């Protein structure tokens, strides 16, 4: 049992939108809530620089194009979105540059009423034309991340400006995911024409409306930003600036944190359990934060080829895998059992329901006996040999070894092949694999993002799983805004996957980080904190000293 303070696992915030979607009055209420943030009793201190580590240099400054956490964490505070997630309130969707919004009766049109008087860092005014440009850019695979654009363009039809401060977004079909995507850290509002006017590697590209402005960037060293004194939210932010330092080695990151060169190990990252224990033992002023994380270990089986085209073999894998042991070995206890959708979301089957499925039953001996029987029934009397591709990295390798040990006991001998990321993905793209393990994650906690990979035509459906009944339910849930109704369908979908087993979920990771207690009003860790952490807008440092 973990002895660190557990943070509250939130329901997925974005889904309050369902209510908002049918009542703009509530949206207005949310607006009023946002405009009067509740701060702790102590008055915030102005000043201080927050320093944290990211493990790689920024490939570009374009948050629409490069959506990885490496870009999102340092760049997002330079911008605002139309709407955003309140990280202090379970990630609820709240207004940002849009003061309020209305959703049409048929759920295919959203009208955003934009703030007036907002200025970009270069002094120009923010208006509807900028918002329209940004949304068009997000839906364009050439100007935005193909990952993001692929999902966004499925739903987004076009946008028009009724006037300078009213944006009308038309959708191709009703979709609950659109608001989740728009509230995500990547859907920021850029200045009209920025892509055509500046290279996305050039600092001139970084013109936003956010609480911080670009200060400097040294590839391989750091990215620095400073407080925007003309930020449209008066009095915010409190800190003078921040610095994201490039460090690839976890030992160095932790050592630098202990030497007080870093304010935090990372944002929702870079702290493992042994290091957390050192912090709690030796550093009374260090805070160890842990929370859920929308990242999981999976064992993706190629269902288009033998032996995994046989459901009995896939079932044998699921039965033979001791998930709790894997959590102990791979992440030293810092993991969560879950099915095919984040267990922290309202869309997942409750753990008790999950345990009704044989592969989650506690009796391992019974499971192994059944797994062996299934293999024999499938014709593998003497067991089988499988090439198992594993992405390099201690976290993945440890889990893979645990699985190898488990499956050997039921007669499946995994021959581990360690590959780096590029080689790994190359093999997946060419459908040249039997089974692989790599961490998977979603940047936004939405069923569309979790389940798209299992639909028949999804480009990321590397395992070639296809079940038309599942696809039908996928389409159906995607159109429903009401969380409870949507969850009914997503749970049906999860039950299908638990039977079909396109892959086998090992465990869900947990986000974790260490920071000094001089840092005040740091939000609780949510499943997608690595992307959405509140842009340091309301964070402050005691006596203006962040370390």
């Amino acid at each position, binding site marked *: 049992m973990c002895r660190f303070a557990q943070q509250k696992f939130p329901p997925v915030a974005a889904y309050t939108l369902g209510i908002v979607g049918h009542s703009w009055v509530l949206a207005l209420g949310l607006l009023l809530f946002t405009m009067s943030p509740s701060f702790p009793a102590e008055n915030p201190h102005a000043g201080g620089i927050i*320093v944290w580590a990211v493990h*790689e*240099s920024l*490939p*570009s400054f374009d948050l629409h194009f490069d*959506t*990885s956490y490496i870009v999102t964490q340092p760049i997002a505070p330079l911008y605002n979105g139309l709407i955003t997630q309140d990280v202090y309130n379970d990630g609820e969707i709240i207004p940002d540059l849009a003061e309020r919004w209305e959703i049409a009766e048929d759920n295919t049109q959203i009208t955003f009423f934009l703030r007036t008087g907002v200025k970009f860092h270069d002094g120009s005014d923010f208006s509807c034309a900028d918002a329209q440009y940004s949304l068009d850019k997000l839906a364009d*695979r*050439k100007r935005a*991340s*193909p*990952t993001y654009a*692929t*999902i966004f363009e499925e739903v987004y039809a076009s946008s028009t400006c009724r006037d300078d401060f009213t944006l009308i977004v038309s959708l191709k079909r009703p979709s609950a995911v659109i608001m989740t995507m728009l509230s995500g850290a990547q859907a920021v509002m850029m200045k009209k024409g920025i892509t055509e006017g500046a*290279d996305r*590697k050039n600092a001139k590209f970084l013109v936003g409306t956010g609480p911080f402005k670009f200060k400097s960037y*040294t*590839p*391989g*060293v*750091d990215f620095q930003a400073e407080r925007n004194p003309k930020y449209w939210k008066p009095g915010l932010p409190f800190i003078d600036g921040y610095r994201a*330092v*490039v*460090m*690839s*080695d976890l*030992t*160095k990151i932790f*050592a*630098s944190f*202990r*030497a*007080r*060169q870093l304010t935090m190990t990372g944002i929702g990252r870079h702290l493992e359990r042994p290091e957390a224990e050192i912090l709690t033992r030796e550093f009374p002023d260090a805070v160890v934060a842990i929370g859920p994380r929308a990242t999981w270990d999976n064992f993706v089986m190629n269902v288009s080829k033998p032996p995994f085209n046989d459901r009995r073999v896939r079932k044998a894998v699921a039965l033979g895998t001791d998930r709790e042991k894997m959590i102990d070995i791979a992440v030293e206890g810092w993991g969560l059992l879950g099915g095919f959708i984040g267990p922290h979301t309202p869309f997942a089957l409750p753990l008790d329901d999950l345990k009704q499925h044989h592969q989650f039953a506690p009796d391992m001996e019974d499971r192994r006996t059944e797994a062996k029987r299934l293999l024999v029934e499938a014709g593998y009397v003497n067991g089988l040999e499988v090439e198992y591709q594993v*992405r390099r990295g201690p976290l993945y390798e440890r889990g893979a070894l645990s699985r190898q040990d488990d499956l050997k006991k039921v007669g499946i001998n995994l021959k581990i092949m360690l*590959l*780096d*990321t*590029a*080689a*790994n*993905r*190359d*093999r*997946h*793209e060419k459908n040249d694999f039997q089974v692989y393990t*790599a*961490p*998977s*994650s*979603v*940047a936004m906690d939405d069923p569309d*993002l979790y389940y*798209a*990979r299992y639909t028949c035509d*999804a*480009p*990321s459906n*590397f395992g070639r799983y296809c079940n038309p009944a599942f696809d039908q339910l996928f389409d159906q849930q995607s159109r429903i805004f009401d969380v409870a109704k949507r969850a009914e369908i997503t749970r049906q979908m999860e039950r299908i996957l638990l039977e079909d087993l396109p892959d086998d979920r090992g465990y869900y990771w947990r986000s974790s980080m260490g920071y000094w207690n001089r840092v005040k009003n740091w939000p609780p860790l949510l499943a997608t904190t690595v992307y959405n952490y509140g842009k340091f807008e309301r964070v402050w440092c005691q006596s203006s000293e962040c370390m």
Partner: protein
Amino acid sequence: MQTYILRRILLMIPTLLGAVTLIFLIMRLLPGDVALYILGSDESSEMNREALQRIRSELGLDQPLIVQYGEWVWKALRFDFGNSYWTRQPVIEELGRRYPMTASLAFLSLLLGTLIAIPIGVLSAIRQDTFIDYGARIFSIAGLSIPSFWLAILIILGLVHYFRWLPPLDYAPFWVDPWLNFKQLVFPALVTGYRLSAIGARMTRSSVLEVLREDYVRTARAKGARELVVVLKHALKNALLPVITIIGIELLVLFGGLIVVETVFTIPGIGRFLVDAITHRDYPSIQALVFVFAAFVLVINLLVDIVYAILDPRIRYA
């Protein structure tokens, strides 16, 4: 001698071309390319074949290998190494930004290594089979055996555990801020310099021992010269020849060590750039770096030969 040097310089051209061709082919044999990274290094990314194709086409990766190779060589002849596929900046600029850190680190490592190696080697030789000698030999064998990444991590952990201190996160070239540069590089230089000093000390010891048995040393002692003069003036000067050779060769090995040390200590030098470039399949950067490293190796080899000839006038090259 001049003809010899000229011939060596001309021979560098095919050697360089061979090295670059080899790395060009090896990199293309590895599965995966930078387009996969640009689309997202995480498995959650929706793999989009159309986008993959577009990026590959933009980068020229869909061209036949011979065309890619020909273009690269033609540009490299004009010192245009192209743009990095990953950072999208000119590779020459990337190298220019990083080389001061690597050069400073290499120089400091060499300095520390030599300053440690020669006194220890001499002391070990003149106090042969004493505890000083045993200690020096343990020091040098440990230096040869301990992997530099392990020593680097140990130093980082030791500094944090005992002093709650680490080299600063800021970087500055030596000529901009020498003190900051020293604080930043002294521990990484100790790691890389240790191996160098170990080899240098062992070589110095055996070389000095050999020289101390020479007739001219006996003659110097017979003349009544002080022991210090005998060792430093008569023995050491002559014993240094093989030491210089080995340090020259080890300087090349040192660059391998720098790659590891720059990665562990998070120093934004050329070594770390190479590691990142290989990870991202950033072909232009890798090829440019291999070109630079190969040129460096050839130049160092040539310099060692020239210094050898200067130190020992009996040596002449055909």
